[in-house]
């Protein structure tokens, strides 16, 4: 059965952060009429067309600049990256190809797609969630890494 890691579980900050992510997606949708899908916004920069570049860079600047904005007020919470460099390269390649091929990631399909009750996004979300669960199971419990 499932053992919950109660000492790691952070329900209030998780919910607060989730509401902020939802707010960001809502603002982007209601002000600019677009889906806040990170992989799509980034990937679109690789086949740029006129008038379609600056807003993408602006969104990326906001996202990448968020830790700097945070640091003006408080220390950043820990970021623990235990994967080694070869794993990070393989993971990055798979995430890059996979999100573009499947037209979205955790934000575009997971947050925005489920919010608009898209069956297509639900199928995508179940696909990457299932693959994520299985991969971690294999790495941590079968290979014992």
């Amino acid at each position, binding site marked *: 059965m499932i053992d*919950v890691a109660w000492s*790691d*579980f952070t329900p209030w*900050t*998780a*919910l*607060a952060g*989730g*509401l*902020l*992510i*939802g*707010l*960001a*997606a*809502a*603002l982007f*949708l*209601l*002000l*600019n*009429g677009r*889906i*806040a899908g*990170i992989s799509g916004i980034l990937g679109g920069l690789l086949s740029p067309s006129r008038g379609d570049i600056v807003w993408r860079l602006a*969104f990326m*600047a*906001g*996202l*990448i600049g*968020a*830790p700097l904005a945070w640091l003006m007020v408080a220390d950043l*919470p820990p*970021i*623990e*990256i235990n994967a080694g460099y070869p794993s*990070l*390269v*393989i*993971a*990055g390649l*798979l995430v*890059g190809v*996979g999100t*573009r*091929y*499947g037209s979205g990631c*955790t*934000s575009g399909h997971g*947050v925005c797609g489920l*919010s608009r009750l*898209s069956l297509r996004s639900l*199928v995508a979300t179940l*696909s990457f969630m*299932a*693959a994520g669960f299985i*991969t971690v*199971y294999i*790495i941590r*419990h079968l290979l014992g890494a």
Partner: protein
Amino acid sequence: MKYNLASLFAGLIFGLGLIISGMANPEKVLGFLDIAGLWDPSLALVMAGAIIVGVVAFAVARRRTLSFLGFSMKIPTSTHIDKRLIIGGLSFGVGWGIAGFCPGPGLVALGAGEIKAAVFVVAMVAGMAVFELIERQRVKT
């Protein structure tokens, strides 16, 4: 100008949400994906919080032809469920499970100055470039 400022602002709020929620930390994401170990359900609450707000926003957006700043609404219309969607999702999920990074948190951790996140992001952009090249070949033939 308004469009770009709104994009910057949305990106910033999104990033702050990822930091507060703990999702910029791959170890915490992996704690959610590890259901056979000690399971950290936090990610589910992040999704729930985001979707609660998102449902309202999309309900409002659906009734509009122009955004509140007067831009055209670009909401996806595809409902097609095909191999591309599922194979793409599965590949993404394997990568997500290996490192604990999906695109947003990878970029935020890069902004926090993490060298390992930079390596992940470079590989991710390379993966996206591979996709572009394959797609261009496919369109030509």
